[in-house]
């Protein structure tokens, strides 16, 4: 097989764009796990709702990309807030299995309600950019992908600054590091947990809205992505945000390369094989030392 350089670069760029979107989901999961020690099974459905929100808002704004994006993120943050106040607030930190089963129920409800109201027919989402793209030499990337990747990068930069320099973010890291000590200095776990869930939902809404013009939008789109996001959270180390981001970009690249050269079955199998190997070699994830333990 001859390897065409243009093809390889194209695959690599697509892989990075894909990886950044995975990272948005995985980071949200990590954030919630770090603060509450629970796994949100319905996280993929938040992404799906984000994509649907984008699909519904775009025609209203006359296909303008940015206002629709903002509206979708806000909507999903509201959904996240509601999920926290109604369901998650009743969970204690040691109820890991219960958290999974409750959010699993929520995920079933969301998927099938969406399917009931809006059918399972895949939707194509059009934006002001259509299929236009940038061309560098013979490489071509659509604007929607470039913007999606850019927005994800901006979101990570924002997240880093928030976690590092604001009281809001420091409280989250404090709870993640030592719950009792955080309580003693007057940090309220309930408020911090709510903030974390809303923030994670916002990231997920951004991912969903950014994916909408790139992929077909269906009620099931979240399920396939969440499975990868779970694997990434394990590979990166549970609750480790930079680890999750690194693992996500790595996976995006590997998937893109494998998808370019091998059968599709290998592409899906890759993530699982990597996860098992990582668990064998480093049970606590690839990036245990260093980095910012969630916050």
């Amino acid at each position, binding site marked *: 097989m001859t390897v065409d350089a243009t093809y390889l670069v194209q695959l690599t760029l697509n892989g990075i764009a894909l990886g950044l979107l995975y990272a948005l989901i995985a980071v949200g999961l990590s954030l919630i796990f770090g603060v509450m020690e629970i796994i949100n099974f319905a996280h993929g459905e938040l992404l799906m709702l984000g994509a649907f929100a984008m699909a519904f808002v775009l025609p209203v704004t006359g296909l303008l990309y940015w206002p629709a994006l903002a509206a979708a993120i806000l909507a999903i943050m509201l959904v996240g807030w509601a999920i926290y106040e109604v369901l998650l607030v009743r969970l204690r930190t040691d109820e890991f299995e219960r958290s*999974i*089963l409750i959010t699993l129920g929520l995920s079933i*409800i969301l998927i099938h309600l969406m399917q009931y109201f809006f059918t399972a027919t895949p939707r194509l989402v059009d934006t002001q950019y259509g299929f236009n793209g940038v061309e560098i030499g013979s490489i071509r990337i659509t604007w929607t992908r470039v913007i999606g990747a850019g927005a994800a990068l901006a979101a990570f930069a924002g997240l880093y600054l928030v976690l590092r320099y604001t009281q809001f973010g420091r409280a989250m890291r404090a709870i993640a590091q030592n719950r009792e000590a955080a309580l003693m200095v007057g940090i309220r776990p309930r408020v911090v947990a709510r903030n974390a869930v809303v923030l994670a939902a916002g990231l997920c809404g951004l991912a969903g809205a950014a994916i909408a013009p790139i992929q077909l939008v269906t009620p099931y789109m979240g399920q*396939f992505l969440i499975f990868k996001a779970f694997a990434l959270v394990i590979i990166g180390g549970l609750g480790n945000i930079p680890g999750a981001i690194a693992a996500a970009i790595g996976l995006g690249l590997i998937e893109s390369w494998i998808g370019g050269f091998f059968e599709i079955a290998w592409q899906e199998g890759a993530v699982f094989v990597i996860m098992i190997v990582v668990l064998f070699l480093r049970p606590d994830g690839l990036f245990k030392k260093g980095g910012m333990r969630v916050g």
Partner: protein
Amino acid sequence: MKLLAAPLASMVAALLLAALPLVTSSNYVIGIGLSALIFTVAAAALNLIYGYTGLLSFAQLGFWGIGGYATALTVVTFGGNFWWGLLWAALVNAVLAIVVGYPTLRTNRHAFVIVTLTFALLVTLIARDWVSLTRGPLGIPNLPAPEAFGHRFAGTAQFYWVAWAFSVAMLGFLYALCSSRIGRTLVAIKQNEPLVRAQGIAPVPYKLAAFAISAAITGAAGGVYCFHLGIIDPLFLDFYYMQTFLIIVIIGGAGSFWGVVVAGVVMSALPELLRFSEDLRMVIYGAILVVAMFVMPSGAAGWLRERQLLRMREHVR
């Protein structure tokens, strides 16, 4: 007297269930009975790993599907018979469970949940994409009826006996296992692992064994069920099955053998009653799951036990 009551009641119930095809000739009703038997076995296997050992495994769905495919492929592609197919299904699954379980059980129970979940979804994708083996979305239709001693179990009513014999054997085995020293060790691991270690018992082999046995039984159950359907395709790995097993275990009461068996029979009939809309049925299932987790997190059996304890306490007072 009280000691004999439970085995006696279960024997009577098993015999009554065996008589179902004699009472009704409706294939629809017998089909529901058959599903109830098989789902109960799969749920009891999930109960072994989740209820007794305390490890929430989503891999059951994967084992269920692999078992179905292994049995179907043994018969259709490799020219074996149904019984060998079931054996292969159990074996393949037990080996897979050990391969996946060993690295995962060394970490914490959080990682176990997530890895098993990804495993289940991976199996679905492979069933769909490995077309040369599984024939992809088309599936393998026209699975032949199994034979034994020159008798052909064709038709739902005949096949019901196969499923019945299988279920009674598996439930009997699981009951014996769960009420043995091994079962008690598993419960001890769930309740307090450090204490179990302090007693000189290594928990990992027990956990692995429970996972492998649970996988083997789930796989064989999947093998029987796909021959009831007569076809296997990637829809056999629909998450719906996993939800059914989970809901049976949770409603019945994780860690309670008879609670799960009773819930299995009752809950398998429920979806048929809810069959007015395919989509809303799943919404109701999700709602049952969420509400049950809040109202009675330890299931009907746990709820009854709590009430009993409360009454005893009042009595003492």
